[in-house]
């Protein structure tokens, strides 16, 4: 199938997934009603008589639409971040988590949850803001330390230092959790990730961050293609490797950090989405970045839908669902077509 048809199908698939994510649940709302409600809210279009005054309007507009859009943004952001990290670090297992984003963010969240402190003027944003700051500080420290140890900032040094920092921060987190046992459940749930009770404010903040980051990363798609062949090769082809590497690492760590700051740790998608996308669409980052956004976003919406409907009215942690569905799906896509399997 031609690339443009694959891309068109992916866009249609993503729209269907978002509509399904918004429409399905304890109260099922048909797509026509969803479109009417969105049109009404955005353009003041008249609502059909059968849904006027029903709870569907609040369910769709106040709960499910922001939740599904947030899931889409978060899934897409971590998937794009994963694809960039894998290429920059030339390691198919690398992600922002390798550099300590999630450990740092979890530590930040733990500090806020345990101490209960509030950053003035930020209110409910204190938790995501602290998570993001701690996540970014961990990554920045790891990369800075790596550059002090190795002036050429070799990929293997970054990965090793990132893992050491990540383990170190995790150890502090474990200490905090063992001391502050009253907050253990809250901390554990934050680390599992959840989209529950998220409203438009999270979407409105995250949307421009994701949009701008993805556009900038897309701008560097050629450099990313070249860097997958190795830094020496990229350097001799005229790529300013050291500068671009900092920009790409910072942007992709920031993308993951911002996403998980709102919803807790969301793993696995950043690892599998880029591989699935490369398998279907090829390795060119011009396609990999936008398609990772669509695939990661859609996959996250599906996982969240399952997490909140499978044992409704209770909710399962979405992090567990991503791995339960993702692992066999990933194995099927990645290994299908290989002989002997």
């Amino acid at each position, binding site marked *: 199938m031609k690339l443009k048809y694959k891309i068109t199908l992916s866009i249609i698939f993503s729209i269907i997934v978002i509509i399904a994510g918004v429409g399905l649940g304890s109260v099922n709302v048909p797509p026509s009603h969803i479109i009417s409600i969105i049109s009404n809210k955005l353009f003041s279009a008249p609502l059909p008589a059968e849904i006027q005054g029903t709870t569907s309007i609040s369910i769709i507009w106040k709960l499910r639409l922001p939740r599904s859009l947030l899931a889409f943004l978060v899934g897409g952001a971590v998937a794009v971040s994963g694809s960039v990290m*894998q*290429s920059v670090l*030339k*390691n*198919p297992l690398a992600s922002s988590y390798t550099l300590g984003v999630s450990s740092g963010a979890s530590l930040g969240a733990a500090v806020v949850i345990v101490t209960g402190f509030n950053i003035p003027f930020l209110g409910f944003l204190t938790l995501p803001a602290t998570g993001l700051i701690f996540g970014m500080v961990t990554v920045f420290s790891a990369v800075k330390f790596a550059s002090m140890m190795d002036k050429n900032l070799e990929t293997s040094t970054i990965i090793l230092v990132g893992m050491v920092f990540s383990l170190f921060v995790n150890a502090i987190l474990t200490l905090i959790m063992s001391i502050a046992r009253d907050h253990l459940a809250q901390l554990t749930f934050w680390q599992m990730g959840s989209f529950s009770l998220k409203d438009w404010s999270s979407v409105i903040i995250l949307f421009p961050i994701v949009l701008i980051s993805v556009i900038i990363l*897309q*701008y560097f*798609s*050629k*450099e990313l*293609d*070249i860097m*997958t*062949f*190795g830094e*020496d*090769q990229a*350097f*001799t*082809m*005229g*790529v*300013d490797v050291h500068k671009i590497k900092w920009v790409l690492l910072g942007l992709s760590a920031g993308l993951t950090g911002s996403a998980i700051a709102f919803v807790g740790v969301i793993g696995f998608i950043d690892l599998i989405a880029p591989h699935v996308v*490369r398998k279907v669409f*090829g*390795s*060119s980052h*011009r396609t990999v970045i936008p398609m990772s956004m669509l695939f990661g976003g859609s996959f996250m919406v599906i996982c969240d839908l399952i997490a909140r409907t499978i044992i409704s009215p209770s909710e399962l942690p979405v992090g567990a669902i991503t791995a339960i569905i993702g692992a066999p799906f990933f194995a099927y896509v990645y290994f299908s077509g290989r002989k002997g399997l």
Partner: protein
Amino acid sequence: MLTLQNVNAGYNGIDVIYNISLSVKEGENLCIIGPNGCGKTTLIKAISGIIPHEGIIKIDGIDINNMKREQVAEKIAVMAQISAVYFSYSIYETVLLGRYLHMKGRTFKEPSLKDKEYTDKCLKAVGLYNIKHKQINTLSGGQLQRVYLARTLVQEPSIILLDEPTNHLDLKHQAELIDFLRDWSKCKGHSVIGVMHDLNLAIKLSDNMLVLDNGNMAAYGNTNKIISSNLLNDVYDMNVTEYMIDSLRQWEAYDSYYNKSKLRKVN
């Protein structure tokens, strides 16, 4: 023209090559030979700017330390050694990436018609045009080496640096590569600087030779003079001349046997 004056370079502050001085004119090819660990690859890395150096390296009279990365890449291209391919691209995509500097000025760095045509031309030159949509992770080492050569050529450099360019190639493709590079440099007035282990190929390609020994220049000059001297015996710690002559004798013996057997068959 490339000139080196008293160049030292190495890793982590420890020099591996010392006081290298040489010059390579347009249309001239230089082969760097020497035993393992003598600093051949380090010299290639220093010239290409991958590692820092002390001393002076000039391209067309301009110190490379005063040139931007892009300006150096416009003049010098390095043919990569075969390494693990992490993510697969088609042959065409891989070679087209060599046009990076030509595409850089455009929005989202899209290739122009000229970039695409030049890529096709280079793919034809290395004999990969007919399989240009194949994924590079399905290629043999020799084919991949030709992909990297094509990517080096699309960069349109005036100097090509090669580090053991024939190590994955079969005999036919070794000969073809050397002939191709020699023609490329002589026709266009460009230069090839290559690290070689195979002395026969080094002789075929080069006008001048640099012999390195423990990071020092053991000899530098006209290829014929270097080869005919006894110096190689000292550098390689073996009788190189005798070894090569012995190989030739064996070939002559095979040739003679082959011709006799053919005669017998005819009779």
